[in-house]
């Protein structure tokens, strides 16, 4: 993709209202430059999926998303045949071959290979798939070429920019990690988070945004089961706006979703004076 340096990339992402830090911009830039997949890990709600979306929009590329789930296999991810039409076709006695492009259903990975325009391929939550699928992905990501037994080999017309995200519910295979560039997305600093809130909710009073970001930063400093993500910060700000600047403790349920966490925060007066 046509960016001169990481800084240009960062600005392009900011144009899509995604504020990336230097490290992330560099990783994305390198992924595009070297043609290597980028593996993004981080806590829930730090905006891993958003990176791919903003990236596609910034580069004017088409976003193709493959959401992984348990039991996902080649027929969910790559291709399948339209069986109902095949059967009808057979009974109609038509002569055209049954396993032809006509009956091929293109799943996300195949779409990404065959696309003529630039593509950002998002392989989301890869940790939810199983080892067999991971092995298949490894093959796919190494030469961007797959074989469909009935049709032959399909290669990429142009290499898609691949973003793989993982929530770390399990450790990914080392071989897959080796193939990718890696970036860990951390929680943003309060100042940066306030910028993100401003970018996402234009017209928010500085004072409200900063207050929420300070509160969230304090919560993240506590030993909680589930820490609030950036998504929660934005939702919390929205809640405060909707309630016309209400009490933080009253609306704690927007940021924390575990009963023990809420009790702990109230008991220890974590939010006092914010």
């Amino acid at each position: 993709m046509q960016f001169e340096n990481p800084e240009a990339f960062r600005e392009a992402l900011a144009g899509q209202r995604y504020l990336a830090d230097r490290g992330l911009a560099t990783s994305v830039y390198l992924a595009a430059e070297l043609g290597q997949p980028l593996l993004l890990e981080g806590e829930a709600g730090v905006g891993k999926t958003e990176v791919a979306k903003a990236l596609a929009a910034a580069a004017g590329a088409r976003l193709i998303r493959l959401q992984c789930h348990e039991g996902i296999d080649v027929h969910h991810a790559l291709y399948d045949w339209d069986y109902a039409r095949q059967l009808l076709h057979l009974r109609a006695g038509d002569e055209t071959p049954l396993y032809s492009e006509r009956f091929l259903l293109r799943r996300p990975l195949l779409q990404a290979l065959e696309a003529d325009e630039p593509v950002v391929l998002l392989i989301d939550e890869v940790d939810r798939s199983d080892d067999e699928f991971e092995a298949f992905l490894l093959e796919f990501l190494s030469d961007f070429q797959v074989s469909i037994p009935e049709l032959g080999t399909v290669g990429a017309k142009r290499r898609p920019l691949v973003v793989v995200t993982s929530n770390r519910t399990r450790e990914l295979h080392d071989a897959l990690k080796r193939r990718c560039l890696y970036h860990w997305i951390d929680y943003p600093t309060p100042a940066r988070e306030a910028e993100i809130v401003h970018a996402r909710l234009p017209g928010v009073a500085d004072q409200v945004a900063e207050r929420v970001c300070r509160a969230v930063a304090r919560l993240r400093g506590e030993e909680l089961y589930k820490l609030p993500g950036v998504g929660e910060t934005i939702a919390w700000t929205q809640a405060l706006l909707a309630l016309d600047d209400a009490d933080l403790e009253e609306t704690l349920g927007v940021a924390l979703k575990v009963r023990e966490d809420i009790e702990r925060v109230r008991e220890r007066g974590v939010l006092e004076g914010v």
Partner: protein
Amino acid sequence: MRAGGARVGVDELLAAHRALRAVDAADRDSAYFALRAALCSRREDLAVFDAAFEAGFAQQAPAQPVPEPLADVASLVLPRAGVPQRETVVDVEADVVPAAWSDVELLRDKDFADYTEEERRLVRGIMGSLARRGPERPSRRTRASHRRGAQPHASRPDLRRTVRASLRHGGEPFERHWRERGERQRPLVFVCDVSGSMEPYARLLLQYMQACVAARRRVEAFVFGTRLTRVTRELRGRDPDRALERASTAAADWSGGTRIGEALATLNREHGRRLGRGAVVVLLSDGWDRGDPDELAEEMARLRRCARRLVWLNPLKAHPDYEPLTRGMRAALPHVDDFLAGNSLASLEQLARVLEGGLASADRGNPAREGDG
């Protein structure tokens, strides 16, 4: 066997020795089949082998029923010397086994604390086979099946193969194919106490954990004394000795004090995701806790809500007079699904049975759990 006419040379003997080491030699059936595979080379040898195995190891060989005792008449008719003394034979079977079929069998009930270095190496194979046994659950990945399942929704039509097959019948889907759900290994999480009081047991329990990490797919291993250390990565790899060495280096507070509650709190907070819903969590500790029992109870409750099943292995439980009186143990027990010993190979076998779901609620930790949950 040589007396019976079979050709058994030194090579066969060596093969037999190797075969015994390759299988779970403490299991009589495994030993039987391993030896048979190594020692017999012709069909005729089988009968000879059965007799020899019977004579050597003095229990009923699985392939051969016990010969009917001679009727009274026959015993009178036949010469004295040829008739076994029935009473003494019965005694022998009940009390002593003249030859154990392996060293491992003798170790089965031996307390881990009394193991020598040699014995630790000896049980490696058996721990490996124990480690392969573990919890499973239905997978969402399907596999081809021949028949439609018995229960509704047990299988779905396999359109891919059905269409293929219909080509043979001019497009009529006469031959139908199905797919059914497979089985997957359920995630397993070990949390082992390596504080001072657990020292005699920790090494072998860690060896078992190492075997599990090597044998199964989704296993996480943690050790704790005063704080929790993840050792899953350290325990991976082919060489068990080096894996154990790496793990002990990683755990800094080896043989120190114990704070179970704090360790579990770290587990819940920092590694909660790794546990995943539906994991079986196995805690290995003697329950001597210097932390706050309330915290322990709270964290146990949390852990239990996230996990599919919570098993506590306490080596002290093997003692017949043991009662869970320590504060920590008392606080934790109400939240435990299964409370087992974990001091010997036999108890690890019991654990394997529990993990496989065979021992439904026979050894339930505490009847009080029914009350609060």
